[in-house]
């Protein structure tokens, strides 16, 4: 068995285990920490797929910044301890049903995948990940120029929105 496959299996098991931990944990802070672990596993998946930039962004932005925000929000609401028992009794069976459907879909797709080789060719393997990073950067700043600039407008709008919704106007106490 080659090294990549072994690494993949270890990571896959960890990723599923932490995702389950996130769902089952009754303490919101633990759930958030499980999510950090999950994000880290996903970041290594990206590396395995030859996408170092996404892996880096996953670690700095998601596992780093966004999780800090999550923890702030959890503490902001004082919601560390989730209440016992189901708030929405219908939700659990419904979620299990949806999960079964999704799993069935995945199985169908996998079976079809092994029947025909036409579908979903693996992307060309990149020997040197620096090359893949360079290639991606070149595309991002030439072909994908428009989406790149629109992203900055999105960030601006998010900034304005956050300030409008949290900042109190001078003289008014809300």
């Amino acid at each position, binding site marked *: 068995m080659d090294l990549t496959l072994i690494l993949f299996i270890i990571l896959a098991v960890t990723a599923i285990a932490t995702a389950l931990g996130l769902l089952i944990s009754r303490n919101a802070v633990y759930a958030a920490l499980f999510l950090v672990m999950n994000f880290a596993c996903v970041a290594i998946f990206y590396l395995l797929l030859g996408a170092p930039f996404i892996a880096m962004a996953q670690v700095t932005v998601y596992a780093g910044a966004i999780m800090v925000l999550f923890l702030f929000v959890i503490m902001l609401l004082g919601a560390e301890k989730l209440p016992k028992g189901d708030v929405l009794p219908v939700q659990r069976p419904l979620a299990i049903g949806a999960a079964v459907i999704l799993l069935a879909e995945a199985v169908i797709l996998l079976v079809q995948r092994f*029947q025909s080789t*036409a*579908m979903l060719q693996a992307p060309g393997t990149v020997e040197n990940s620096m090359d893949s990073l360079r290639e991606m950067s070149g595309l991002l700043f030439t072909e994908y120029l428009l989406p790149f600039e629109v992203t900055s407008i*999105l960030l*601006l709008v998010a900034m304005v929105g956050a300030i*409008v919704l949290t900042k109190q106007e001078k003289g008014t106490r809300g």
Partner: protein
Amino acid sequence: MTQSDLITILPLLALVVWACALLLVDLFIPKGRKGWTALLAAAGLALTMGLTLAQAGREASGFGGMLRLDGFSTFLNVLFLGSGLLGVAVAYGYLKRMDLERGEFYSLLLFSITGMMLMAQAADLIVIFLALELLSIPLYVLAAFARPRADSEEAGLKYFLLGAFSTGFVVYGITLVFGATGTTSLAKIVEVLAAGSLGTGSLLLTIGAALILVGFSFKVAAVPFHMWTPDVYQGAPTPVTAFMSVGAKAAGFAALMRIFVMAFPSLSADLTPVLWALAALTMFIGNIIAISQTNIKRMLAYSSIAHAGYILMALVAYGNPAVAADSVASALFYLVAYAVTSFGAWSVVMSLEKPDAKGLEINDFAGLGRRNPLLAAAMTIFMLSFTGMPPTLGLVGKFFLFRTAIEGGFIGLAIIGVLTSLISAYYYLRVVVTMYMREGEPQAEGEYWLTFTTVVTALATVVLQFLPAALFALAAGAVLK
């Protein structure tokens, strides 16, 4: 940047720069004089409208085919900018009256319109996703603009959560389509489909397209993805609701038409039954639940759900080449009719609204016919137009829609459309009856720009129906090729 890049993006660029500048200029406009911000926002919209109209009839493609300028985008951009102008007009007095006067309102409105215009011009799934976000995020904030009023905060949060959820569907759909075809460009997807070498990938493509349809069904509020609509429409400040019910819906349909008519016509065999059911359900549920509403904002919310169903009816026929062009044209025509009528109806609601969400029951309209004949007459026109009765634009719009459905061979759907229109007459006319037949002393606001909007939209609803051929020709000229 080539010249054609610049031509394609010019109106968008103008509006974005204006919105950024407005955000900064507003910092130096003292509180209580935000009329200047409103005026500047309107000027920016008017300028962009001028640029858009100056480019009318032009076709260009920029940024490697990611952005398109064509009749379709011009038509919709004018609609978005027009609704933006009306939005500024009705918001100015309202914000002042409700003590919500903050300059960010107008900048956010401008950013949202930028997103809508980007949506109308997008020819790449990535740009469509970004446009969806750019138009939605300001709307989430605007829905919660009346904070700390609890219902407004609830509206913002609800809209945000369900909007993010629906965006998830869109993104997942886009990845599946990308996985199946290897490209996000709509034009290249068409090429790949035409080559017909997808194999089992076509299943993936169908699932992807279906997920995109689900995502945008949330945005246009089609049943069964409509649950957020009444609460959000009720809780959001009314000018935001008016703008949202027109702009966000039109942008959602713009994306659906771009994607499904341009890229996926070959999927119609798989998706037509789904669209059929979606349209039928939306018309039925929207109209039936609207009957039991006593709050005018909730009633209009369900009415807007029902109207999404009528527009979806046009899209059901898109796979039939004989009526494909007509289906887009009639959907565009109906969007205009709906936009004008809807803005008018919301402006009347705003005239009667009192602080703390008072004056919003249908019973509060009692006696309006005697107290304020002009407003009551305008509301009557809007209600008739929503129902699809003469002498209004709504009738012409519904006529074109039903004609397309029948010519496309979907007679059952057309019958459902007619039947549900009859049902809708009950609750629309109840408002009219309340205004004229019942006693009451409603106090209407006489703000200049609000009254102006009511009068303009009422006149447009009546006058435009006399030139349906010209307007339909405009819409037909905007059909995607």
